[in-house]
């Protein structure tokens, strides 16, 4: 069996993000990290490959910045990494992205399962996963909290999904795309040996010509950024003994009409 996971680098969530004069975002020289949601998808890909005598491949679509996430993935224990990039992808949107992602999976050929994290923490779009599934024409199981059964020979999977209203058990045929939640596993840290091996790895770069795809038209503009409007919140700390404090707080909440 062959499992594929997509990941990318994001600025460290603690980084101080600023908007420059061109309306673009900068985060100084703060390090990038693997998209935090993807730690769970990477771990799950490793587990699935190990437990079923298969192979795991991680793919990032993007510029060299994303090699960091790929190296982190290899250091965790993914078997192979691929980066897809082509200047023609500059300024395109999630439609082009999903078309390329599906083409990369199809080029690998023997893939049974594609795993995504829930979303990218920086842009928070939460759309690449579903769109890739549609471009592949495969079923999509999102918000997976647990894989209950998977049979790569019979090509079936049974999962528990976490929905707003409760937990749902669903079965599907394979190949399929899933996106996983935090509950699914306990991501490992890269080992020292893993980090050394990953640092030496040569990561192949596939171009659009390698994939043989035509891109759909892009409908959304490249985003520009603004700082949040300055809101000067002056906290009012309640004074007096505890009874006075809670009484004043209730007064204030009634004045603000939020009760």
């Amino acid at each position, binding site marked *: 069996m062959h499992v594929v996971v997509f990941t990318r680098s994001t600025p460290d969530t*603690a980084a101080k*993000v600023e908007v420059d004069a061109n309306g673009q975002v900068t985060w100084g020289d703060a390090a990038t990290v693997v998209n935090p949601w993807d730690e769970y998808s990477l771990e799950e890909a490793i587990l699935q490959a190990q437990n079923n005598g298969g192979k795991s491949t991680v793919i990032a679509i993007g510029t060299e910045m994303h090699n960091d996430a790929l190296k982190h993935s290899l250091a965790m224990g993914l078997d192979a990494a691929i980066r897809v990039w082509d200047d023609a992808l500059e300024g395109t949107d999630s*439609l082009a992205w999903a078309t390329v992602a599906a083409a990369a999976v199809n080029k690998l050929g023997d893939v049974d399962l594609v795993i995504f994290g829930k979303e990218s923490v920086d842009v928070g779009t939460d*759309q690449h996963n579903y769109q890739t599934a*549609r471009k592949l024409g495969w*079923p999509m199981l999102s918000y997976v909290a647990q894989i209950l059964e998977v049979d790569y020979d019979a090509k079936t999977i049974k999962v528990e999904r*976490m929905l*707003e209203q409760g937990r749902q058990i669903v079965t599907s045929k394979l190949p399929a795309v899933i996106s996983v939640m935090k509950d699914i596993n306990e991501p490992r840290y890269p080992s020292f040996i893993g980090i050394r091996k990953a640092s030496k790895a040569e990561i192949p770069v596939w171009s659009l010509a390698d994939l043989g795809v035509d891109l759909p038209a892009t409908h959304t503009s490249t985003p520009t950024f603004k700082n949040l409007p300055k809101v000067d919140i002056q906290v009012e700390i309640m004074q007096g003994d505890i009874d006075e*404090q809670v009484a004043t707080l209730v007064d204030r909440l009634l004045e603000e009409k*939020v009760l």
Partner: protein
Amino acid sequence: MSAVYVWIETFEGAANPASWEALGAGRQLADAAGVPLTAIVLGENAGAIANEAAQHGAEKAIVCEDATLHGFRLEPYAALLSHLVESNQPKAVVAVGTNSARELLAASAADTNSGLLTEITDMSLASDGSVQVTRPAYAGKVISEVTIDAAGTQFLLLRGRAFTPLDVDESATADITTVDAVLAEDEIATKIEAFEAASGTVNLSDAAIIVSGGRGMANNPAEAPPDAEDPVVWKAKDGFANTLTPLANVLGAAIGASRAAVDAGFIPYAHQVGQTGKTVSPDLYIACGISGAIQHQAGMRTSKIIVAINKDAEAPIFKLARFGIVGDLYEVVPALTEELKKRLGQQ
């Protein structure tokens, strides 16, 4: 450009009231574009829900009650929506970005090669038909502005509670069209085997008031029983159940939590607020024993009024809060609950 479509999310035969926000936003777009506002209602009881949608501003509705659409599944829903978009070329498809809506609109945008924008907090239609959108990015630290062109159908997912529903008009009716499903059951690869409803009461994403607990919940003065597996976890769980829940109950509030509380096993992940949890925007957010780390802020900073209860006057949460009490939550919360009962007349 036939219409502005709004997907009305349904669950077990009832509409998700957040959908009325999407009708409110859709109404503005439809009026600006000079096209009708059409509710798309799929699943159990769709006909009756379409009438409700009419009272919330839809003048047309497209419904399908086919058994394959009972319970949301992406494949049959997306196949039908994509078919409607391809045949009718609507100006836009709008929904509030719940889990199912995100999947459905993203999938259908991919099927029809249309543009999609998510987490929209504000939007306006330009004279060339493009839609200019504002959405937060980088954990809400900055605002991002994006335009979606007018070349095809525009798929627009709204952040919950960012748009307001219209006033209900009880006499309004919609012109309803019934359509057939596109996929038959044997063409659908996924089957729902079982469903277990979540225990908690109010859904975080559309709660008007949220009471949240953090790592500070562990400092419960109550004694853990000698047979408790982990006394710290026991104390925190006891605090959520017997200190925070009574406050939430007087307020009709949902219960949230910080990641520290979730990771420590005090409360299930479904309650987590923040960058890797839910993004919420209630009228009132009461943070108890939460320091206010940047990743927690990412999920709650757009709350209208934030109240912080924390024993550390230097905690960053006080930089975000409108009102604060510096003190032990295990003294403050019960006192506040009693005061609220008195003042809200719930003796």
